[in-house]
């Protein structure tokens, strides 16, 4: 590939592939070698100062102490020790992980049949419109979408009123709100479009003729799906899982608004520490979850590679 740097002002006969590169480098010299990275400069400044440095600070903070709202540079493992010594915090940490797993699993399970239907049975022209309809709720404020669930799940909310109206119950059933299931439900609601879009992008490329071929060869549809479709969708499904699971781990708003005292997630803990001036403890809690996320990203880095949406 030709680099952006390296000038060639003299018309020459088209060289062979490999030769072009060497010639350009020869012309530009060392500058061409470094110049090709020039585009990184603004990004390096922005991220070096405003992303890497603050995160490094957080790492450092997690090993320092807070005394009377001021941070003291004494190196210690106390913050981590404290965190692991409080049963409530540990419970919150594990709860965050299993809530995220549950929410992700449910989201994918709901999104997959939906996406399958969309790709398989809906005429191409309408597919775009139906996808837009999926994203449309996104255009209202995230906060308000969460808030409106309160009106559905609450004791005098839509579900309870409906149940009372058809006489299935005769008083409000307060199972629905301010607990983990409510948080999971709302998270599924919020992240469904992510899963649907990612699965759609992957499913859309599937060659349905393979299905026909399989069935011609005598395979029942279920076998066809399991042995032909799913393996080809593996990267798509993995990407969908990554795009849903990881953000949910760091969720803060949904648990705060609908979680009550039992639906607390680690994001709430972190915010609580930081707004209470407990920077060092907050940093330790933040690093625990950030570390998990980075580890997951490294393990699944291949799912992050992007393909050209404009390819012909």
């Amino acid at each position, binding site marked *: 590939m030709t680099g952006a740097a390296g000038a060639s*002002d003299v018309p020459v006969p088209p060289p062979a592939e490999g030769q072009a590169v060497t010639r350009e480098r020869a012309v530009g010299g060392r500058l061409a070698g470094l110049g090709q990275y020039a585009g990184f400069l603004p990004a390096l400044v*922005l991220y070096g100062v405003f992303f890497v440095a*603050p995160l490094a600070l957080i790492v450092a903070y997690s090993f320092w102490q807070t005394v009377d709202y001021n941070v003291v540079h004494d190196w210690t493992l106390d913050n981590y020790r404290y965190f692991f010594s409080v049963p409530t915090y540990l419970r919150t940490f594990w709860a965050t992980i299993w809530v995220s797993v549950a929410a992700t699993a449910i989201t994918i399970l709901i999104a997959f049949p939906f996406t399958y239907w969309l790709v398989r049975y809906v005429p191409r022209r309408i597919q775009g419109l139906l996808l837009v309809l*999926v994203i449309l*709720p996104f255009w209202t404020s995230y906060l308000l979408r969460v808030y409106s669930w*309160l009106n559905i799940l609450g004791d005098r909310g839509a579900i309870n009123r409906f149940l009372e109206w058809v006489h299935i119950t005769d008083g409000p059933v307060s199972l629905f709100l301010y607990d983990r299931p409510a948080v999971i439900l709302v998270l599924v609601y919020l992240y469904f479009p992510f899963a649907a879009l990612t699965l759609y992008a992957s499913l859309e490329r599937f060659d349905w003729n393979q299905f026909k071929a399989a069935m011609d060869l005598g395979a029942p549809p279920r076998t066809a799906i399991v042995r032909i479709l799913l393996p080809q969708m593996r990267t798509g499904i993995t990407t969908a899982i990554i795009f849903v699971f990881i953000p949910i781990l760091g969720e803060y708003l949904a648990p705060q608004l609908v979680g009550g005292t039992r639906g607390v997630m680690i994001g709430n803990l972190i915010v609580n520490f930081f707004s209470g001036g407990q920077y060092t403890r907050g940093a330790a809690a933040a690093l625990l979850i950030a570390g998990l996320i980075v580890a997951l990203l490294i393990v699944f880095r291949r799912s992050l590679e992007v393909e050209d949406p*404009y390819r012909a």
Partner: protein
Amino acid sequence: MREVEVVSPHAGLVKALLGTWAVLVYLFLFAPIVLLVLFSFNANRYGTFPFTGWTTHWYSEVFGNYQIKDALTTSLRVAAEVTLISTVVGTAAAFPLVRSRLPFRSGITVGMTLPIMIPGLLIGVSLLILMTSFFHIQLSVQTAVIGQAVYTTPFVLLLVAARLQGFDTSLERAASDLGANTFNRLRYVVLPLIMPAVFAGALFAFTLSLDEFIITLFLIGAQNTLPIYIYTQVKFGITPEVNALASLLLAASLVLIAFAFLLPAVLRRGRNAVRAGRA
């Protein structure tokens, strides 16, 4: 001989079941929205059931509300600056990402997506510490802009990089053979062809910025953007004015989307009409 399509005996049933599933999904997606709009007409000032009466009072409140106008202005200002920064930084960085010889390419890709995947909470909080405890600068709209830019730039970067990846370099080589230097190649060949991706990235950054909440919450000081205003109203539970505001925002987005969908058709018809006229 005509090909006979082998179809499973249950095909009709499966199709019906999946169709029903899709309908349920759409109900699930839109139920909260419908309720939201419904409650914007609820006379009950606490915005819950029971429905105490119908009113458009909250809508008139929205239009007379200084805080909403203030928040909207701030949101737009922030979004403009964020879009500018992300587009420039992201597009510039896309070139070396795709075209240069990079060691640890997958490592760098992970690094590039880190700002998106790391909880926004973390970005907000770490920048808060950096600004207040390290640089000792006051929180303001500018600090919020920086925080949001950190979050939105990777999106621009990924969109432009994806476009560049599929870019046909023979066009560039042809230009170079015809005597164009780097700058002219960029200006007349590369940039125009990747413009759709750049604009898509810019638009995306703009949209993300408008709805961004958690990073802004930590970094904006005493000002409000629209999401922060809404959050305060929701958290501190005031009136259905918020519902009215949300309904208005939804209506505005609907108009924009309809516009976006009808526009290509309109343009195409216009183009065809012109072409037919010329013929």
